[in-house]
């Protein structure tokens, strides 16, 4: 088990290094205007600009620039923002905005796990019957219709229907409801689809048939055998989802003007502020990689088969 964790940790580190290197190098190709404010750009000579860029690791030796940047990144120092929030350290911005995204994401995750699992259960129990049809219709709609379209209709129509505010206000709790609900719609469908699939797979296995043949109580079988085993694969994705809530949803944060990290990324893109884009992309990717790592470790704890096969190797 220890060997497995060390091995996976090593892989995770390599992924993060490769990723950050690629993103850093690619962003060096961007036009340099993205590193200056308008006044700065106009008041400096090309030689001065060159010096500033070299100092920030954007021009000059690529490897040294990358190493310097990563040295800063490890202690959570990504330099300063220049266009959107002049001279504010990027790390301060992130710390300020992450809680909004994180809170919204956490609330929506709790809701979607509960509702999604209930829906998946209902669909699997009533397979090929009415609940299944309704559930499938919901899943197909959510998955196939572009998200922006239905999220926008929800914002415009449903908020009006329940007399909720159209935008997000930090001091008005009722304005949190619609963003959380819209954030949950997609993941509810996701949990329901997979739980239904795993439940039905599990239901057809031989040991369940044996349990039925033995005459065990149907409810007991469902609760203690089928559901338990079907839920395990979902555990794999929970940590990644939890960590990614910090990065927020680009569409929803922008529609409801929530001051979160997803919205910040969109502003940074529109203003072409390269330093901020780089920092945010690095953080989002790292969160995702770390989430997958924790998921793998968690799976190894929950599912004994993984441990056995790793020890056998």
């Amino acid at each position: 088990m220890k060997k497995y964790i060390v091995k996976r940790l090593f892989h995770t580190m390599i992924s993060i290094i490769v990723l950050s290197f690629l993103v850093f190098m690619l962003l060096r190709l961007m036009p340099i205007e993205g590193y200056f404010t308008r006044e700065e750009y106009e008041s400096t000579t090309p030689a001065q600009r060159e010096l500033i860029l070299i100092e920030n690791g954007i021009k000059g030796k690529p490897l040294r620039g990358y190493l310097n940047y990563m040295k800063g990144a490890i202690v959570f120092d990504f330099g300063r923002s220049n266009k959107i929030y002049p001279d504010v350290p990027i790390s301060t911005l992130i710390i300020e905005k992450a809680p909004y995204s994180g809170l919204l994401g956490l609330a929506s995750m709790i809701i979607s796990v509960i509702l999604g699992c209930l829906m998946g259960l209902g669909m699997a129990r009533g397979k090929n019957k009415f609940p299944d049809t309704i559930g499938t219709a919901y899943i197909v709609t959510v998955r196939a219709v572009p998200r922006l379209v239905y999220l926008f209709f929800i914002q415009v129509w449903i908020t009006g229907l329940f007399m909720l505010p159209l935008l997000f206000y930090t001091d008005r709790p009722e304005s949190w409801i619609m963003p959380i609900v819209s954030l949950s719609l997609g993941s509810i469908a996701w949990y329901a689809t997979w739980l239904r699939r795993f439940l039905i797979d599990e239901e057809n296995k031989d040991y369940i048939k044996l349990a039925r043949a033995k005459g065990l109580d149907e409810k007991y079988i469902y609760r203690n055998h089928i559901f338990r085993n079907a839920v395990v694969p979902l555990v794999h994705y929970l940590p990644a989802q939890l960590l990614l809530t910090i990065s927020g949803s680009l569409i929803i944060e922008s529609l409801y003007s929530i001051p979160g990290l997803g919205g910040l990324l969109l502003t940074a893109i529109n203003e072409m502020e390269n330093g901020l884009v780089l920092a945010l992309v690095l953080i989002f990717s790292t969160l995702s990689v770390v989430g997958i790592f924790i998921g793998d470790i968690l799976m190894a704890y929950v599912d004994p088969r993984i441990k056995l096969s790793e020890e056998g190797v």
Partner: protein
Amino acid sequence: MQEREFKADLFDVVEFIHDESKYVAYEKYSYWRSTFRTFFKSKFNIFLITAVTVLVLMAFLYPVFYSSDPYSANTDFYQWNQAPGDGHLFGTDSLGRDIFARTWYGTRTSLLLAFIIAFCDVTIGVFAGAIWGYVKKVDRPMTELYNIVMNVPQTVYLIILSYILRPGFWTIVIAKASRGWLSIGKFIRNKVLVIRDSEYNIASTCLGTPLRRVVIKNIIPFLVSIIIMETALSIPYVIGSEVFLGFIGLGMPTTSVSLGVLVNEGKNSFQNYPYQLIYPTSIVAFITVSFYIIGNRFADSSDPKNHI
């Protein structure tokens, strides 16, 4: 044991009856015929296929039926933001451009985008996946590549590529296809591993079936149905990503017409002229939902377990 003699007159020759043979043996079994028979058994599937065909034809042939130019703006104030009605079936937008024409034109652009991306994904994915599955040496590096790329959340990946390259049609193709082939490749690799070592293939080889026949009869049908399904399913995703990229300002340029551009334009004028969003998006939604359902239904009917 008492020996029994079998006389010829104890037996008669039974005529071959097609319908009954289904229940007894698979003598006349044809994979493709059974797939299509199962697929077209459902009236709903027939309806969907017809509707999608009509819509796709309409998107590519609309100039034959309808003469309005999707680009022609109008300087006449009264032609702006006209409600749906005579002359303009879906009304006009804030520059007096005909929304009906724009919808079909945009659908064509987006479908073209989706088809190109699906084609790239599937061709590269199938070849790479087949090699990935068969050649043991490439397995490790390919799996590492897959893990590294898939670790990046899809939206972040799309954003960073469209940010670095200049936003446009081919940027979206590159951004989507450079990631999409990997997931299809991984899927095909897993399938190839399973099929290659499956008992029925080993049995066929032992019985002296030539490799060519194993490939044509056992492996190709398996992969072709997967390919068709993946192609159908990737269309809604591509259209969705295009709309999303348009929303964050990294999609197609606003001078061109695509569904992403249409949705974002309609969204901005929704408060005053809701029809400018509702008509185009209902067609988008219908197309994406139909392709999604057709892909899934076809996958079901291509599974031999559902053929009897």
